[in-house]
């Protein structure tokens, strides 16, 4: 039922105007909701309270909503908050009033189903996760696709991207950022464009012609006024930048957008070197951001997509929403935002990649991988130099990759294998201590 109609009905049944107004508020805090509940109980009596609260309960901002009979009963059972919320919402839809017996039966059934669905102790969850991602992996594309939109930025997707994530690569094949802007800049294209210019690398060669002239032993820089205007750069800034390259440089402003750097008593080789150095000098922008494109999101806000990534520096730019701007480089996120943010980023990136390929993998498997990779406080790859390479068992490591190296290393250090894991017990032909194999039975005397 709509809040409005619910409010009308409340008025009819003789509830205070004040309370009705409170109920119509968009968000109600838990404290206020409890107060409203008490007031309603006094004014219209218990039978009404549940129904009334159910009408607006959806609007209460707390997850652990503790209202009405149903709300209270649901709160008692041992299931996660998300399930409780869903349950409350579903029970609210039930038109007929639930008797206590029926409600209890429903809740008991939910609790039981939840317990049954939980994984058993000693279950090999890692193997299940590996298979659950491995199988869809066989259906993934091997190619790099480009992003939606014409002339947009290329991004590694599909299987290569998944491999990149689990390998925790420091250098990505296509680093990219999604730069969200604060509302003032996100609503207008030209304002967003201005920030794009603020972060996109601009070298001198992008805004001017740089030429080394042998006849007068100097480097000539001819500024392109149009480009300067487009990138919001003043010609004084360029002059200053060039002067900053080296204090020994003699920079002369010729006029008409021309600059001349005199190179005295130097060889032709030095002249060419200076030419190369001047043309690649950064005038504006953040090093590493090769391109920044303005795109309009489905939600209507303007967002920047970049080629290249420099999270820390971009977050500091005025106008950039430093709470929602992200990069696809997980190591960078770990460095700038911490290990928990890196864990979230792994989950987001993997789920996003799988989802883009139309594959449905349970988030629990992805979460397990992210948890394992971030266990030790830093992002570790799943592979030879990470999780698999740090296993305690010699045999397990030898079975994974570079067998001889591992055995030799272990022999030199005189390692022992406690035969506790799965692989080593398979190798020696013993039952593995997993699932039902982990349980020992003893006859009662």
């Amino acid at each position, binding site marked *: 039922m709509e809040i409005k109609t619910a409010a009308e009905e409340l008025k009819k049944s003789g509830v205070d105007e004040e309370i009705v107004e409170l109920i119509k508020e968009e968000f109600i805090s838990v404290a206020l909701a409890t107060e409203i509940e008490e007031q309603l109980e006094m004014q219209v009596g218990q039978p009404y309270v549940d129904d009334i609260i159910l009408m607006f309960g959806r609007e209460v901002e707390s*997850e652990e909503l503790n209202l009405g009979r149903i709300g209270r009963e649901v709160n008692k059972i041992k299931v996660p908050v*998300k399930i409780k*919320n869903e349950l409350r919402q579903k029970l609210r839809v039930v038109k007929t009033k639930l008797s206590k017996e029926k409600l209890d039966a429903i809740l008991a059934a939910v609790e039981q189903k939840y317990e049954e669905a939980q994984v058993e102790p000693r279950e090999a969850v890692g193997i299940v996760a590996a298979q659950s991602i491995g199988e869809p992996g066989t259906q993934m594309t091997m190619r790099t696709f480009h992003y939606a939109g014409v002339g947009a930025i290329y991004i590694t997707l599909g299987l290569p991207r998944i491999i990149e994530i689990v390998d925790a690569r420091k250098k990505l094949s296509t680093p990219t950022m999604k730069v969200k802007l604060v509302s003032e800049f996100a609503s207008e294209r030209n304002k967003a464009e201005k920030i794009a210019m603020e972060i996109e690398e601009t070298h001198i060669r992008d805004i001017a012609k740089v030429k080394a002239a042998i006849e007068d032993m100097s480097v000539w820089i001819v500024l392109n006024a149009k480009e300067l205007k487009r990138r919001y750069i003043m010609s004084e800034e360029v002059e200053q930048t060039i002067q900053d390259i080296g204090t020994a440089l003699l920079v002369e402003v010729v006029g008409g957008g021309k600059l001349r750097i005199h190179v005295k008593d130097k060889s032709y080789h030095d002249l060419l070197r200076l030419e190369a150095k001047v043309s690649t000098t950064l005038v504006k922008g953040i090093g590493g951001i090769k391109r920044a494109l303005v795109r309009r999101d489905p939600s209507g806000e303007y967002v920047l997509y970049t080629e290249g990534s420099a999270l820390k520096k971009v977050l*500091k730019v005025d*106008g950039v929403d430093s709470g929602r701007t992200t990069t696809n480089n997980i190591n960078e996120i770990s460095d700038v935002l*911490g290990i*928990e*943010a890196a864990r979230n*980023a792994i989950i987001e990136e993997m789920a996003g990649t799988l989802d883009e390929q139309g594959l449905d993998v349970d988030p629990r498997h992805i979460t397990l991988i992210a948890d394992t990779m971030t266990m030790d*406080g830093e992002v570790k790859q799943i592979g030879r130099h990470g999780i698999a390479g740090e296993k305690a068992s010699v045999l397990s490591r030898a079975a994974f990759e570079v067998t001889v190296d591992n055995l030799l290393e272990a022999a030199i250090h005189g390692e022992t294998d406690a035969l506790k894991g799965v692989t080593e017990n398979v190798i020696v032909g013993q039952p593995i201590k997993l699932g039902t194999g982990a349980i020992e039975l003893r006859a009662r005397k």
Partner: protein
Amino acid sequence: MKKETLSILEHELVPEHVLMDESEVKELLDKYKIRRVQLPKIKVSDPAINGMGAEVGDVVEITRQSRTAGKALSFRLVIG
């Protein structure tokens, strides 16, 4: 144009980190029957616990937004 300060704690990827006191840690370890070192780790230099005064050996409680459970508690041991 640069911002003066940057608070990474407001980033949507960063969950809430809270330093636990000793009695809470003991309760936690007793509940799961584990030793301190069996907890997942977080570096003392981690940006998310910067300025919290956490020292090596402390335990941090993390309130994650979970895709499956809605909200989930997690714990990390501070390491050097």
